[in-house]
């Protein structure tokens, strides 16, 4: 199956500091990819490149097999398909109230008002924030702002949603609710996170950023102790437990239920 969105051997950096060198990531339609890596490893840089915000100095980003060219017309087209939600919702929210903010993207797509309204309602509904519609954005709690920021991207109905640390700072129930919401979107999602347990339980593909490169594979990549170490991650407890118990890791135990089954009770 061919890639919907991909970064092909990209090199990216600021001034003379190279963040990613020869890094590739392939995103197939409908996949759920967890992008893992340490603070400062280049996860955000890679997402920015995929979204078109940063231009690789070497290599290309492709959408639907087409090389992305960084001129205004092509970038605009790219942004209709690929939306990035930043880690800090305050970097994204700027309007006086929630509805206005969420309507910003749809109106920029050139939709007429009625369609834009429908999109806003749909997005607020998908993110379960309809009750916040008329609230001033700066009065919302952190978790609420995170959801509204995602709604702003979802309202553009992108084919790929890139999320930078969407669960950071949320309490456990907030994380669970957000993950359930994302599962219900039906969009291709790439989610950058530090949370290896979350990655294991949610993702169907894993990509690990370390030393300027990206390794992509099935979640069983998280069994590779050397990779885990070099990426400053830790092994998900499910895998560590099963490994240390000397039990088979295939199929990969991803939830507590899988682990219980594997232990045989």
């Amino acid at each position, binding site marked *: 199956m061919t890639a919907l969105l991909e970064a092909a051997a990209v090199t990216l950096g600021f001034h003379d500091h190279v963040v990613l060198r020869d890094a590739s990531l392939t995103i197939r339609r409908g996949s759920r990819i967890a992008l893992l890596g340490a603070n400062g490893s280049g996860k955000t840089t890679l997402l920015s490149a995929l979204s078109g915000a940063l231009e690789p100095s070497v290599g290309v980003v492709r959408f639907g097999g087409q090389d992305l060219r960084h001129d205004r017309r092509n970038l605009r087209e790219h942004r209709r398909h690929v939306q990035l939600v930043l880690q800090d919702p305050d970097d994204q929210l700027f309007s*006086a*109230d929630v509805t206005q903010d969420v309507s910003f993207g749809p109106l920029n797509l050139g939709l007429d008002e009625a369609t834009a309204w429908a999109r806003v309602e749909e997005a607020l509904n998908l993110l379960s924030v309809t009750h916040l519609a008329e609230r*001033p954005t*700066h009065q919302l709690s952190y978790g609420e702002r995170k959801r509204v920021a995602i709604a702003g991207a979802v309202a553009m109905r992108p084919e790929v949603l890139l999320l930078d640390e969407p669960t950071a700072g949320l309490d456990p129930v907030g994380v669970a609710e957000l993950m359930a919401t994302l599962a219900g979107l039906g969009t291709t999602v790439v989610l950058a996170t530090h949370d290896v347990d979350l990655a294991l339980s949610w993702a169907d593909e894993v990509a690990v950023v370390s030393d300027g490169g990206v390794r992509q594979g099935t979640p069983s990549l998280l069994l590779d102790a050397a990779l885990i170490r070099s990426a400053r991650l830790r092994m998900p407890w499910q895998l560590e437990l099963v490994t240390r118990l000397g039990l088979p890791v295939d199929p990969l135990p991803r939830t507590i239920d899988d682990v219980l089954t594997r232990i045989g009770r």
Partner: protein
Amino acid sequence: MHIAEGFLPPIQCAVWFAASAPFVIHGARAVIAKAKESPENKLLLAAAGAFTFVLSAIKLPSVTGSSSHPTGTGAGAILFGPPVMAFLGTIVLLFQALLLAHGGLTTLGANVFSMAIAGPWAGYGIWKLIRRTSAPAWVGVFFAMAVADLVTYCVTSVQLAIAFPDAASGFAGALTKFLTVFAVTQIPLAVAEGVLGVLLFGFFTRV
């Protein structure tokens, strides 16, 4: 546009420093008084100063010139009063000179006079004047912002005309030339800044 380092003759640099000094010292005293009143004011004033600087990184859409940005001195004068703006404006101009190479040290006096004194005072004056009439507040905001912006550039033109009188037509001719280059082109930007002020005013009534 600030007058660049080295552009004004030495005597005039000194004269503009002397002209600005009383306003800046007066402003500094006002700031010290506010800081004594409550330590919190220091942070609020610093935030205002930082914000004024950050404005120069915000480009205005669809107006002539690629590097046009709002000056914000009219709004600052309404919010904090012209004396405080004289001081904050001086800090911001010093920052711009050293961080962005906009303006200079020897021309600091002249730039402070146009941008941190004349502009804010003019904007503030118009604001007070319009508030006395029955006109709605947004009219006052519009004119305060637009006038502060425009006066700044008119004063800059005067400063340059004094420094470089026209060989044939003297000061008047020179003023015409500099106004044409700096102030006339600024009119749409001044209007734009006024409009921005009104939109901003609208934003704050909604939050």
